């Protein structure tokens, strides 16, 4: 029984929802306990956002320390040891604790609203996913307090990660932290797949789904298919480190290349896990602010699917310097180049959507355009190292650092900011300050390019990545200083954003249900939406339901139907999440009693969860 098909009796017992006073329907009213036990997708989305954004700031701070060290040759701001911890944690944090969960924040808040559902298919599993993510992220970062953070790179290449070359618990924190985070991602992805397929409003056929929902669906499939590969690798590594097996130990007949294959079979789809939600956001923002429906909707959808498929066949392009031989290199090169085609199709369709529209360059569109402009650069440098001979000079240099920051910051982060400015009124009921938003955009845009553009040249001129220092006289000084200055400008722009966010939450202008005159279903709800979302589930007859004739009048609140019953809050999800992390702590400290305690707690929590009724 899912929330969307709940019976319609009023339920006042739920601690997660207060029904009195003026904010009768605001999903956020209630004390701290109501947040800890909540199963409301909107609250979980907000918690995802806040946690992921804090991790994003931590990762950004790590980046600034890295840039401070690299501002001049043979600098001593950071020791080699601390530098290696910081670049490892910067990458790990940004990928697993910032970008992915920021996307998850949008999935959580927006998807049920976009498809006309009252919650996700498994609300408690959703809460569980969030708590596992949060605890896993805290576990990873706790390493700073216990002998140092992981320092073998976010890609953790074997056999540097073996006990012989990485002593202490640093790498163990990474091994167990990532396994815990994997649990969160897989649970969340299964939840969204079921939600999107099963909880669509009547009439919301697949080819009427909003693009963001489509990209979320594709991303979720990518996640459940990609994560098992890294999980297998991590379990092998855990066995190598804990029980002395030799999967990656050449002296015992193991193979260091096995890790690279397993990691990149996960790692390349991971790139699309980070970028497809951005494509989805952009495909919502551009039509809304062009006052014109998305051009080539089916092509955008099919391109997304094609990119996801091809994404599983290109992993060895991370390994061109390994020497796999001309046949393997040719095949993986050709497959990689193919991805440029659907990606290009998307970009052309976005431009075509704007073409002939009435563009209002409000902050969401500004960031969306920034995304397209920067992503083109990242895409083109990507094509350059899809060519293996060219890649031999570029891989593991700052050229690659420049490339993927144009994709993941110039791409994903610009898009996520577009999404934040776009959906903020729906989440909080208030608009963010446009003046601050535009200032944020321009400072970020300039800081970003100043930081990362020179890195293309640094790489081509011979500066490898992951180096804690460089010597004077190789021509690296000027561009490194430039990048460092740029990174602090970039960091400064975040202060403006945070200020705008905090201020607008309380003092922003009241938004109303649909401040941007947007076409998708979530904008038919009050801002913020009531805790049950849709009093009446609407019937959908059009891809842009609010733009069709009479669509503006769509108001699920106006039907006067009784308030739907929502699932009750529960402590079991956070309990189970804590139990899993306790087990992981036992594993990484190699303490059998703690592992057993964690296992026992997992059993208790699963039992309690299973026998607690959904509605009380």
């Amino acid at each position, binding site marked *: 029984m899912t929330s969307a098909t709940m019976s319609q009796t009023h339920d006042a017992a739920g601690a997660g929802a207060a029904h009195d006073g003026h904010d009768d329907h605001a999903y956020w009213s209630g004390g701290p306990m109501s947040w800890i036990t909540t199963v409301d997708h909107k609250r979980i989305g907000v918690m995802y956002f806040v946690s992921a954004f804090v991790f994003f700031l931590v990762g950004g701070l790590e980046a600034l320390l890295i840039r401070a060290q690299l501002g001049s040759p043979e600098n001593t701001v950071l020791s080699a040891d601390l530098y290696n911890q910081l670049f490892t944690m910067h990458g790990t944090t940004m990928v697993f604790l910032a970008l992915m969960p920021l996307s998850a924040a949008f999935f959580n808040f927006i998807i049920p609203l976009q498809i006309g559902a009252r919650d996700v298919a498994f609300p408690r599993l959703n809460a569980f996913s969030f708590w596992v993510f949060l605890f896993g992220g805290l576990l990873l970062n706790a390493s700073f307090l216990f002998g140092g953070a992981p320092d073998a790179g976010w890609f953790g290449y074997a056999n540097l990660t073996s006990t012989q070359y990485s002593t202490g618990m640093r790498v163990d924190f990474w091994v167990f932290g990532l396994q815990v985070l994997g649990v969160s991602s897989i649970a969340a992805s299964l939840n969204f797949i079921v939600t999107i397929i099963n909880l669509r409003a009547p009439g919301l056929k697949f080819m009427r789904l909003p693009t963001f929902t489509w990209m979320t669906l594709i991303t979720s499939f990518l996640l459940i298919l990609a994560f098992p590969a890294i999980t297998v690798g991590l379990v092998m590594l855990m066995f190598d480190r804990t029980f002395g097996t030799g999967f990656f130990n050449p002296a015992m007949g193991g193979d260091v290349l096995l890790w690279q294959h397993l990691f990149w079979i996960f790692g390349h789809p991971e790139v699309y896990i980070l970028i497809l939600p951005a494509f989805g956001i952009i495909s919502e923002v551009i039509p809304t602010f062009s006052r014109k429906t998305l051009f080539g909707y089916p092509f955008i959808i099919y391109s997304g699917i094609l990119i996801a498929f091809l994404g599983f066949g290109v992993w060895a392009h991370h390994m061109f*310097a390994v020497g796999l031989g001309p046949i393997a290199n040719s095949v993986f090169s050709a497959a990689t180049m193919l991805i440029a085609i659907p990606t290009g199709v998307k970009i052309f369709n976005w*431009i075509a959507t704007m073409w002939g529209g009435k563009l209002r360059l409000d902050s969401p569109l500004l960031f969306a355009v920034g995304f397209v402009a920067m992503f083109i650069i990242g895409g083109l440098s990507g094509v350059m190292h899809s060519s293996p001979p060219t890649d031999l000079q570029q891989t593991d240099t700052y050229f690659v650092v420049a490339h993927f920051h144009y994709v993941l910051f110039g791409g994903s982060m610009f898009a996520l900011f577009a999404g934040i400015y776009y959906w903020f009124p729906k989440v909080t009921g208030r608009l963010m300050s446009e003046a601050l938003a535009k200032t944020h955009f321009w400072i970020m845009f*300039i800081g970003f390019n100043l930081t990362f553009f020179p890195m293309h040249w640094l790489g081509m001129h011979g500066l490898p990545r992951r180096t804690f220092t460089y010597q004077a006289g190789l021509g690296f000084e000027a561009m490194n200083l430039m990048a460092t200055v740029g990174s602090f400008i970039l960091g400064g722009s975040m202060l403006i954003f945070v200020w705008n966010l905090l201020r607008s939450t309380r003092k922003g202008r009241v938004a109303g249900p649909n401040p941007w005159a947007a076409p998708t279903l979530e904008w038919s709800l009050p801002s913020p939406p009531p805790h049950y979302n849709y009093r009446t589930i609407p019937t959908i007859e059009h891809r842009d339901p609010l733009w069709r004739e009479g669509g503006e009048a769509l108001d699920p609140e106006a039907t006067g139907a009784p308030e739907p019953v929502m699932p009750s809050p529960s402590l079991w999800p956070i309990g189970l999440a804590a139990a899993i992390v306790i087990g992981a702590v036992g594993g990484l400290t190699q303490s059998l009693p703690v592992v057993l305690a964690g296992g026992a707690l997992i059993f208790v929590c699963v039992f309690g969860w299973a026998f607690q009724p959904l509605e009380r």
Partner: protein
Amino acid sequence: MNDATYVPGAARRRRVGAVALALSALVLVSACGGPFPQSAMDPASDMATRLQDLFAGILWWAIGVFVIVEGALLVGIFKYRDRRVGPADGERAEPRHMHGNTLLELAWTLAPALVLVFIAVPTMTTIWDVDRLTTDPDALTIEVIGHQWWWEFRYPDYDLITANEAYIPEGRTVEFLLTSADVIHSFWVPRLAGKRDVMPGHETHLWFTADSVGRFTGQCAEFCGLSHALMKLEVVVATPEDFAAWVEAQTQPSPVLQAAAEADTIEAPQTRTELAREVVADQEEPGGAAEAEAEEAAGPAAQDTDLATIIEEGQQLLMTKGCIACHRIQGTPAAGVLGPDLSHVGSRRTIAAGILENTTENMIRWLRDPGEVKPGALMPALQLSEEELRTLAAYLRSLE
């Protein structure tokens, strides 16, 4: 409903101008920050030239695509921007919804595919030219062994072992066979060749023909632990004659040791010293000057210490301080294999894998505490007295 204010034209133009300025400044600074002695864009071998030519070709395609697509984006924005100041009033004509156009979709699917063909074809031919094994029967084979954090070079044809500085002949194919003694490294000398990973349990290949004489720096390109940034190397491309002379010198004990050995057989200390001095004078090269420098740096007390004593005492330290456990020095009992071969360490331009100039002060600094120069270095601090440091440094620097 949205009444966000719009930026007036002048301010907007200023912003656009500022961005344009910033971007052109980027290109400018990037172009004149040099010189770039380690640049992949300044090739000095057949392979590096192939890679650079391919890159240049792809770069032009990328610039073309960049201009067209970014141009279309900008034109779209400026042309279709709703410039009115104030809230949307709903009175203007709404844009016509266009759901798509199959012909257009077909066109912009095929256009990038066509561009990719122009990139893929030269890519594939280059792969098959540079990625196969060399068929040149005269190729010089050099075995490269990566260590945390230095490079070992072995020339099996000449029974020659050296570290961090490899000589190769100009105009002759050189094939490197790469493997690692510990973790994964990556061999990269940008002006001579693309990277090739250096892995434990695998042997990889890399070959090229250098086409100009000179010193080419490179460094490890795969993160290999604490001092990954300090794992550099130099490949010296020499004329065939100079290369032959280098091989000849490297396959014998250092001249000072030869001289010492000869003198020993005569058993005449005086003669021995003179012989050693002759040899030093013969060297003439930077080493000779540096030697004088070293003696000066060692202070007045050391001026009496002649080379013979240095060699004798240095040899002593070598034995008693444990150096011989890890290092090999031809002509002495030192035959360790864990650390770099030091038979001719005095002839190298740098020490500590390309990190320090080969000067007496730097040698002393290294010997005093290797971990201070190279965090995590396996070589321990030997707890030598200042005098011992001076002696050992002078000894090592005399090994040309």
